[in-house]
């Protein structure tokens, strides 16, 4: 039985990839994931905004009350160097590369045009096998059009691609008016992979304090439907490799993603909940299913139920259930 797959030009031993999450924060955990069978790991994201914010915070609070009062011209020791910026992250990527044999994919969330490119290059230089651009922009400005927003994404992708040698995947959220068109633009901009979909912190309300609080739940299995649909639709329409993330919890979930056209299925919530060993369980489930159904390889099933290959292509286009007579075709 052949479980191998090819994603972003990387030869992977199976389609189970660990998605960007806290799972990659410790080298030891990543080693365990590798031992459990994970084919690759996407490291947690380097957030440019966080780096900038932390630098700003450090500078502000170290100096805010300084030089105000004769007895205390400062309130903190000031070492000659701080480990600020992306260095901790870059060191971590390098350490991961040293510790494991599976591909390590960096992940980056930038803010500024310069930041995207500079940090992307740094991650490449740190040894990452590929880079996943974790792009999201909550377009709250009513005067900002969808075209303007989409153009910003495309410019970023083009700029990064121009400056990088390693493959670049783009992780997107689902909130685009014409997603297929936008995916195609991303594809044309040079993305080597499309990762569907990003999950965001969504604000919640604390009714006791009447405060807005950030919230992120682990994914539920039902959430896989969205990437499943869009992988199916995009398969064959874009050159980029497709990957699914969100709601993938079992071996059969992975198989569904493969059939929709995915090259890899990415998991995090399931592993955060049940531990790193769960990877081996998922792989066993894949094997058992393939054995039972007599599939020979993963590649054999990739895209087999995409919109282009399935018997009911219209199913992917419907937004509401419609009762139809089976025999009727308009």
């Amino acid at each position, binding site marked *: 039985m052949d479980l191998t797959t090819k994603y972003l030009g990387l030869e992977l031993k199976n389609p189970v990839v660990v998605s960007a999450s806290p799972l990659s924060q410790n080298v030891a955990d990543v080693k365990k994931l590798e031992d459990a069978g994970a084919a690759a790991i996407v490291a947690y994201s380097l957030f440019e905004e966080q*780096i*900038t914010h*932390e*630098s*700003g*915070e*450090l*500078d*502000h*609070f*170290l*100096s*805010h*009350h*300084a*030089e*105000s*009062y*004769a*007895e*205390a*011209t*400062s*309130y*903190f*020791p*000031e*070492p*000659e*160097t*701080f*480990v*600020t*910026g992306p260095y*901790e992250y870059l060191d971590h990527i390098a350490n991961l590369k040293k510790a494991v044999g599976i591909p390590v994919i960096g992940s980056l969330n930038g803010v500024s045009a310069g930041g995207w490119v500079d940090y992307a290059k740094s991650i490449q230089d740190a040894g990452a096998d590929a880079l996943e651009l974790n792009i999201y922009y909550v377009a709250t400005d009513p005067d900002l059009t969808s075209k303007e927003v989409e153009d910003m994404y495309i410019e970023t992708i083009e700029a990064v691609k121009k400056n990088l040698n390693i493959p670049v995947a783009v992780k997107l959220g689902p909130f685009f008016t014409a997603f297929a068109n936008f995916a195609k633009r991303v594809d044309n901009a040079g993305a080597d992979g499309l990762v569907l979909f990003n999950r965001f912190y969504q604000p919640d309300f604390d009714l006791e304090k*009447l*405060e807005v609080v950030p919230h992120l739940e682990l994914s539920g299995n039902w959430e896989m439907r969205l990437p499943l649909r869009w992988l199916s639709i995009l398969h064959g329409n874009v050159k980029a490799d497709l990957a699914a993330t969100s709601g993938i919890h079992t071996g059969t979930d992975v198989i569904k993603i493969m059939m929709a056209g995915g090259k890899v299925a990415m998991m995090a919530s399931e592993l955060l909940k049940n531990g790193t060993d769960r990877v081996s369980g998922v792989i066993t489930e894949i094997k058992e299913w393939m054995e039972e159904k007599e599939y020979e390889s993963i590649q054999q099933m990739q895209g087999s139920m995409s919109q282009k290959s399935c018997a009911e292509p219209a199913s992917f286009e419907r937004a509401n259930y419609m009762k139809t007579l089976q025999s009727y075709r308009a």
Partner: protein
Amino acid sequence: MERKKITIDGNEAAAKVAFKLSEVIAIYPITPSSPMGEHSDAWSADGKKNIWGTIPSVTEMQSEGGASGAVHGSLQAGALTTTFTASQGLLLMIPNMHKIAGELTPAVFHVSARSLAAQALSIFGDHTDVMQVRPTGFALIASGSVQEVHDIAAITHKATLESRIPFLHFFDGFRTSHEVQKIEELTEDDLKQLIDNSFVHAHRGRALNPDKPVLRGSSQNPDVYFQGRETVNKYYDATPEIVQNAMNKFAEITGRQYKLFDYYGAPDAKRIVVLMGSGAETVKETVEYLTERMEEKVGTVVVRLYRPFSVKHLLDAFPKTVESIAVLDRTKEPGAHGEPLYLDVMTAFAEAMSSKEKPFENMPKIVGGRYGLSSKEFTPAMIKSVFDNLKKEEPKNHFTVGIKDDVTFTSLDFDPSFIIEDPEATKCMFYGLGSDGTVGANKNSIKIIGEQTPNYAQGYFVYDSKKSGSTTVSHLRFGKKPIRSTYLLQEADFVGCHLFVLLEKFDVLEKIKEGGTFLLNSPYDTDEVWDKLPKKVQRQIIEKKLDFYVVDAYEVAKNTGMGARINTVMQTCFFAISGVLPKDEAIARIKDTIQKTYGSKGEAIVKKNFAAVDQTLEHLKKIEYGSEVTSQISLPPVVSDKAPEFVKDVLAQLIAGKGDDVPVSQIPADGTFPTATAKWEKRNVGLEVPVWETDLCIQCNKCVIVCPHAAIRAKVYDKDVLKDAPATFKYMDARGKEDADKAYTLQVAVEDCTGCHLCVEVCPAKDKSEVKRKAINMAEQIPLRVTERENFDFFLDIPEYDRKKLKINTVAGSQFLEPLFEFSGACPGCGETPYVKLVSQLFGDRAVIANATGCSSIYGGNLPTTPWAVNKDGRGPAWNNSLFEDNAEFGLGMRLAIDRDTEFAKELLHDLRDEVGAELADAIINASQKSEVEIEDQRGRVAELKAKLEGMNSDKAKELLSLIEYLVIRSVWIMGGDGWAYDIGFGGLDHVLASGKNVNILVLDTEVYSNTGGQQSKATGLAAVAKFAAAGRPSPKKDLGMMAVQYGNVYVAQIAMGANDAHTLKAILEAEAYDGPSLIIAYSHCIAHGYDMRYGMEHQKLAVDSAYWPLYRYNPDNTKLGKNPFKLDSKQAKIKLEDYIYTETRYKMLTKMHPERAKELLIKAQKEVEKKWNVYSQLAKMDFSSVKDEETE
């Protein structure tokens, strides 16, 4: 090899050498010497090495006494050892100094000389501290400038090794320790050439060593002790030559020649001034002016080696032409015939002139004078008056100069218009706000000019004594010649005013020269700024024909993400218009400095500073103005006309920055000042202030209890009062049955509020239709100032709630009590003062307070005004600050006196029982005074007694009258920070706890020495970064509470107002009610923790929620009832420790310095929290029924 030119201050200049020439450094923070220890600690943490290639070990001790003990031990064990200190710290070292000198041990103490606490504490510079150690046997050597500090430090380390005499190297606190100067840095090679290693080896050879055992520290008897003392004479006799040789060797290496007594001036001078320290620089400058420009025959002898005092070298330094000498001492020895240096010089001359070989033809007239105490300015005008005095037939002796003494008429008059500033130097003054980065920017400017051009540069910075809304004035000089002016600028070519409102507070343009340049940070457009200037400022600009520039620095800072930090903007403006450097070159150098300064904190910081530089020039505008004053704006009076005479006559001058003009007659002779004066100093520092919304308020009074400045207050009162209320005065119906038909008002003192936001953050009442609107919200202060001033005045006149009827055991009820601690100079959002204020509300009308030195003594007792206040009856806390180390004992002494005199009063009353009436006497003697009602009743009885006694004529009646006020119960409070309670004062605190006496100890625990700038104490948390723990504190916080619990008879509580205000109140009430020692440890958030102080109370909650700071009360009274005295009042951890500590820079910064160590320490700290919780929860579950006190059954 060419030596590097660096611009540093005196402290760093000393520390650089001391670090390089030491193996062990034992330290303790004290102003102004702390930075020497801080530098050493940071260098050690960074792995820097001494000249022998090893990293000196730096250890903070619990006090200067401890530091000197550790130094003594380290020296005895063979290490080259140093320490740094000043003032009271040096006094604590005296016992060990005698020992170290007695044992002929080479060592150097570097001292930034400072005043001693006498009638008042002062952090500023003079030689009073150094003069106290004259008899210790230490050699004393003085430096007068930053370069000299650097050089003499090196000479001293050499001389001590060769002479075996320990040295105290001193320089003037602040004037030299904090003055930034361009100097030539000694290289490691210089130091290696200077130090003869054979003496180092000899020192080690004398170390205690079990391979060659000896005994030191024996006890000697009358037979030999005396002889033993005389054995050292030859070492002292040899020392002056050893020092001079060291100076000569130093000159060979560097070209800078020093002498034990250096002479400057006319070779045939007749009038000579003798002095030491920084004042000598100005004397030299003045002598040069007087000899060159006025052809006066004057000179100065500058004393460097003061002990051992070499008469020979002193006399050799004087030209034979000398006729009169003024010896200037920067110290005061009350009751002495003269100050020390004067007596030394006089004796030297007297001895010499009465010997056979008279070195001078005639005995010169010698007079002594005092100058410069507590960094009092010492200017050329004053020096000229000293020289002029020497011209007289009978020069005034034992004079003072620099003040007006209209009581004993010691002072010399001087002409302030005698100004000798170098006309070729550029002199610049900058007025800034403490938090706007002005001083930091100026330090950078000095670096740019000093290190990147051939010019010399000098910077000195004056800070005010407030911690909130503090202003800074920077004095900068640049020039081609070395700068020796050790006094503030007397005229300026350039004045920068970095905050518009400072034009109303200071005479900003007083010193600017005609044709000078004035740069103003203005929020107004260029066409309206002129009319916004006060009349006086317009007049000065016109009359002095100033080039007037404005920039809206806040706008540029905001646009470039700099927030309120306008340092880079103003610095760019300065270089753009001052002409100190060509503009483009200056901009390039500013950017270079930005890269160096901020590079390590991240590229984003560098970029936004660059953006600020680039945008500044577009916003910098020159203002054209006419020849007429058009402004309608007059400067407001400093204090209200309603203020008491003393406030108007004296304190107002201090507030206005004119304190130097106050004559001796106006200053209280014994340091006694009236309280309740802070309310007259309307500082208007809050840009935004809270505004009350009556439709939302639930009258919880949480905003009142947390207000650090007592600037938000609540009253419930009869509605009749409202008939006279101002139109904008707000009120609502009071809640609660007892207060039905009454009105409730929450009033803000907008002129006293610092705008910290704490009140808004704790307000629980939110608008149901728009949750961001609370019952109090911040609004711009200026539009509210006039109406709310009137409203607050009206509010103050509303009668207070009757204390007898108040439910003071509820948070809401307690906050109707009048605060007797108000409008202090504490930081905005201070975490300490809410506790202090609460104590003042509950017990202030009968409290006596002993306050340890530290933040609380500064915001509580620093002139010009005092926040401790009085109620309508004139009662309020009586307060004193003794020292840092003795506060618990000081408070205990107060308790002993009160107990003794109360008892004596009762004895007398008992004796007079029949005469005053048995019923009254018995009622007074037996009054329990446990409630407000009982105390008020007792006050009534005492008043009745007083009336009776006043009509009696017996000795006993008179005796009792003098003690009568003791008959009303008094509450003794001992307050201070963790530096005092955990470290320097712990021994005394422990003893007082063990005494069983009824004192209340409030520890305001900020977990660092806040007042001196955030050095670690034993209260500092594991994993926190602090000064002296630059690599993160590796050991856990001392559990002071549990130590006290072990006594069993001490009431102990750990509280955090932000986590549980009701618990805080309960604990403070119980502590006071407990008839024995009470210890309250109060979590106090602090600017030294590194986050926005508006969230201070939230951080307190996080500390409790993580179980880092469990709330508890240990009440020994419960033991008597068979109950567990220990009650754990908070729940087990709801959040992980990291979710608390990593919200604070003090912890978070370690992850940016040493990420791996941060991880290790976090794990350790989390375990520590869990371990402690485990112990506490076990203790809380213990059964005490078997130890029930039988008598209470």
